[in-house]
């Protein structure tokens, strides 16, 4: 379903992704693990038509995201790592907007929005503007929105960041159900090893833009001679802490804080 060969992305002199290759079968749940700045999000961006690879090849359901963008976009849904909702719109409007863009028929749309907002406990706040939401509520809305249409491939980029255990549980139960009943292929990244172990059929560990190991959680443990995935992860990627660049978005957030009344 997803296929990558020698996939590379350079930003000037910096090489974010350095010739990675992997395959995800139809109906598989595939987890990308890696420290901050390993290149996980850049990889997802190349798979989801947001970035063009510097070299190498990718295919999604037999389509090239770099050239057959429109067709590719019909195949997947995505929950982004950082915010992608409109603050000025209400929770319901954000959902509805998504439903229209993804051509979910009106009747089904209304029913599914209600179902999902109730599932993620946002129904009572559906007519409130998102700018009044807490971080956890915003995150829940992003996830609920990601489930509004049923894609062939679902990308989840650190979906559980900042979520409470209840919502995390809801999320993974929902992901597993989609995977089992609708045969949705899932490509996820996370920092929580136990989540990867719980849901993923196969795991790839990425570091400094390369895939350093791939296999099931059992295989990775055996390969590194460790007892837990966490230990295997540390054995493969080392124990030093990675710095991520702040860049313009951080400056921007600061500016906005100045301007907000």
């Amino acid at each position: 379903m997803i296929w990558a060969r020698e996939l590379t992305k350079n930003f000037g002199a910096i090489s974010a992704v350095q010739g990675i290759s992997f395959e995800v079968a139809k109906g598989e749940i595939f987890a990308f693990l890696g420290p901050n700045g390993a290149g996980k999000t850049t990889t997802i961006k190349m798979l989801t038509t947001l970035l063009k690879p510097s070299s190498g090849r990718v295919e999604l359901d037999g389509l090239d995201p770099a050239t057959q963008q429109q067709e590719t976009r019909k195949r997947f849904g995505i929950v982004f790592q950082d915010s992608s909702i409109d603050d000025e719109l209400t929770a319901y409007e954000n959902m509805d907007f998504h439903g229209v863009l993804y051509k979910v028929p009106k009747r089904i749309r209304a029913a599914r929005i209600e179902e999902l907002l109730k599932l993620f406990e946002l129904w009572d706040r559906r007519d409130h503007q998102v700018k009044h939401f807490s971080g956890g509520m915003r995150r829940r809305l992003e996830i609920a929105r990601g489930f509004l249409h049923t894609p062939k491939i679902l990308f989840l980029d650190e979906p559980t960041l900042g979520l409470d255990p209840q919502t995390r549980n809801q999320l993974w139960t929902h992901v597993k159900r989609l995977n089992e009943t609708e045969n949705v292929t899932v490509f996820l990244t996370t920092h929580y090893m136990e989540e990867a172990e719980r849901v993923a059929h196969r795991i790839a560990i990425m570091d400094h833009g390369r895939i350093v190991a791939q296999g099931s959680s059992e295989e990775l443990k055996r390969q590194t001679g460790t007892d837990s995935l966490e230990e295997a992860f540390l054995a493969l990627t080392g124990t030093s802490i990675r710095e991520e660049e702040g860049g313009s978005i951080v400056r921007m957030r600061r500016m906005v804080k100045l301007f907000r009344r």
Partner: protein
Amino acid sequence: MNAVYILWLRQLKRYTRSRARVTASLAQPLLFLFALGFGLGPTFQKAGHGNYIQFISPGVIGMTVLFNSMFSGIELIWDRQFGFLKETLVAPVSRLSIMIGRTLGGATTALIQGVIIMGVCTVAGFRVQNLSLLPVAFLFMALIATTFTALGTGIASLLTDFQGFQLVMNLVVMPAFFLSGALFPLGEAPAPIQFIASFDPLSFGVDGLRTALIGVAHFGIPTDLGVLATFTTLFLGFGGYLFSRIQL
């Protein structure tokens, strides 16, 4: 088509919900109207050009539409910074329809602002000469709005953060306004100014507005309409192209 509509609707909702922005963006044209309109009025009258409020009002309306539409276009940077752009860019709709929806939405809000200012001008003493030509005036406002929202969107597609915003204001918006004949009769201006003005879409927009509203023409409506519509098409193409090439 639905995508165009929902993006248009979103721009409108954002506009009606940010009262602070509505008020703030009316302040500047009011300043021009009152300070210049009343300040220079007597001098203008002595020079034999008649009522300055009458002359400057179409210019101030054009300016309002210019500023608001450019701003709507540039707003794309905010969407990029706050992540909402990603949501629209991965959706299974053509980038062109997203760009068109955004642009029409932004243009509609600019048009509304222009109509509000027209009302304010009337309070200040401005009188529309021929009410039956009012639809023509609205057509020109809509064209100015679409042209500059598309231009703003195109420019914003190239900018990754707000550093470039000031640059656009100083190098595009201000010259477009001051060199358009919004504040002075182009026919009396020195040849170099007239020459530069003939490359400024707003010159034709303001001239069209002025002709429709008070019956004073420099280029004349057919030229105004032809040139402005060409700019609109050109900038929609330009904006659409740059927007479709955005990578995040």
